[in-house]
């Protein structure tokens, strides 16, 4: 007979040992090295860094291995570590216009200054499983060096003709919102919304972005530009008094060109949606740009009717570490609450059997 009154501690320790041995798998098979993960499961590492909010490939690889490939668990590990780090301040805005470009495509113009650079993409591969691919020696691809000279952004080209709304003006003195230091409140400003989306679950944003394409809050998007490459991160050190380069990071940026808006006083212009991720997370960057634009409904005077336009709904449910914690917490013991519910249902049933009138029951329920 199973009576879980004592022995919890022992059980937990044993479960941890079992987990570690399951994680390792068959000891006759060599353990994955961190270099293998960060070199060959690159996109998993990129996703974990983006949603984990730390740019550190080795740490992300370590988390993925420890999490047995469960990416949300790996993101969780990174977030928990991140919470222990001191915050020195905010970097200078990164200049994606000066990116060393590895991939850059526009769906709005056939050709444009700097050209279309396909780069490493699954896009035009045929999804046919090729069992031999793992063993075959890879062919050497023809690549040019990353393009270092500034490549004008499509949205800047349109802005030159005033065909798209301006980017918000830079305000260097304005504080940068950070929802890891200030709790989210509504209505949220766009900087905090974008931070929330950047940390948000790829699958959740993907589904929301998709819902806008299917009519639940339509925004007429065009992928104005998607670019992947390295950007410089700079930080103004108070002591030095000038911007110090911290290093280069890989980012993916997506600029959506959306439904035009105009009014009696303003000629029609396209509007923007923006997405930015660490590493190569193109699906995430695109979904983020779609949802960013949807969340601007209130600001642009559009009816807020669809889930993707509802900032409280989106921002409160986008974080997969929060979501997985709360969904899975249902596994925790709820004995005492359930005991109370059980008692109530038994009491109501006995009232019912004694023929209490439905009116009295309704009153009791209220």
């Amino acid at each position, binding site marked *: 007979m199973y009576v879980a009154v004592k022995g919890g501690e022992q059980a937990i320790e044993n479960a941890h040992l079992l987990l570690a041995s399951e994680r390792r798998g068959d000891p006759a098979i060599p353990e994955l090295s961190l270099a293998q993960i960060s070199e060959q499961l690159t996109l998993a590492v990129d996703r974990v860094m983006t949603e984990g909010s730390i740019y550190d490939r080795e740490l992300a690889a370590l988390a993925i291995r420890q999490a047995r490939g469960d990416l949300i668990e790996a993101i969780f590990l990174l977030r928990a570590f991140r919470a222990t780090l001191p915050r020195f301040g905010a970097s200078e805005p990164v200049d994606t216009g000066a990116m060393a470009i590895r991939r850059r495509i526009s769906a709005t113009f*056939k*050709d444009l200054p700097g050209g279309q650079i396909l780069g490493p993409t699954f*896009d*035009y591969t*045929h999804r046919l499983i090729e069992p031999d691919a793992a063993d075959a020696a890879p062919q050497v691809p023809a690549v040019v060096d990353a393009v270092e000279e500034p490549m004008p952004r499509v949205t*800047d080209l349109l802005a030159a003709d005033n065909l798209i709304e301006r980017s918000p003006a830079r305000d260097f003195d304005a504080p940068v919102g950070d929802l890891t230091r200030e709790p989210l409140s509504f209505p949220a400003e766009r900087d905090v919304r974008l931070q929330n989306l950047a940390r948000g679950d790829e699958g959740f944003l993907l589904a929301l972005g998709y819902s806008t394409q*299917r*009519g639940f809050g*339509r925004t007429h998007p065009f992928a104005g530009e998607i670019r992947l490459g390295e950007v410089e991160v700079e930080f103004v050190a108070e002591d030095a008094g000038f911007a110090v380069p911290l290093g280069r990071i890989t980012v993916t940026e997506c600029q959506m060109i959306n439904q035009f808006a105009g009014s009696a006083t303003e000629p029609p212009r396209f509007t923007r949606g923006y997405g930015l991720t660490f590493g190569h997370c193109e699906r995430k960057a695109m979904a983020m740009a779609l949802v960013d634009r949807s969340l601007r409904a209130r600001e642009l005077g559009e009816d807020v009717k669809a889930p993707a336009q509802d900032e409280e709904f989106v921002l409160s449910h986008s974080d997969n570490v929060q979501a997985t914690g709360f969904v899975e917490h249902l596994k925790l013991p709820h004995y005492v609450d359930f005991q109370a519910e059980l008692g109530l249902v038994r009491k109501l049933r006995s009232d019912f059997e004694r023929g209490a009138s439905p009116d009295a029951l309704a009153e009791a329920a209220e």
Partner: protein
Amino acid sequence: MNAPAYNFAYLDEQTKRMIRRAILKAIAIPGYQVPFASREMPMPYGWGTGGVQVTASILGPNDVLKVIDQGSDDTTNAVSIRKFFQRTAGVATTTHTRDATVIQTRHRIPEQALAEGQVLVFQVPIPEPLRFLEPRETETRRMHALADYSLMHLKLYEDIARHGRISTSYAYPVKVQGRYVMDPSPTPKFDNPKMNDCAALQLFGAGREKRIYAIPPYTAVVSLDFEDHPFERYRHDARCELCGADDSYLDEVITDDRGGRMFVCSDTDYCEARRATADKPHAVPQGYPA
């Protein structure tokens, strides 16, 4: 592991029969969206899985296939789909509109008039013309059944009230044979008149949304409009800078970051044929009457 073996044109014969039945039904009810059990294809949804399934189902070993995207044979997705059928069906391919028996297209109808015996297969993202006015399928199916298209007319009217003109520039709704309102797929409205009374069979495949619809040859296709705001065809008012055409749909190409731009034919086959025969004016391919 068993290495997979694939049938002619990728799909198994049972699937092809199912799709052909849907196509036949679609031809019998012009403009009506026939549900079909769309398969997972080896390219992503939204990249032409519907068109690819229709093409795979009608393709025979003697067909000659042309694939275009944005009017061009050379755009990445067109290249990819053409290679897919070269690899899985081994059929002959061409870039010449007049030589093709099957043309799969995304977003354009070729400039050269199509002929009897040709099939034009459209890739369709959202087959439901009412979708952006009413997101629920249960509602839109009912509207089609009752031929209740007031919502669409209201939308076009609101465009005029707000912008002074109908502000739908692509995926412009049409009425087929006086009955069903149909989405022509996101072709620029410039192409709408080509669908009317067309000699070729036009098939539309939407993979993700699991719908097939059709316009049989010589069917009446009318772009929705109002008496005082008639349908207007739009093309940029310029000649193609490569071939000089003044009747073709043009792409805008940005040439520098100081406002420089040029306009060229979106239909690359049309443009190339015109350039090749520039010194023989009578051999210029015949476009549609404007």
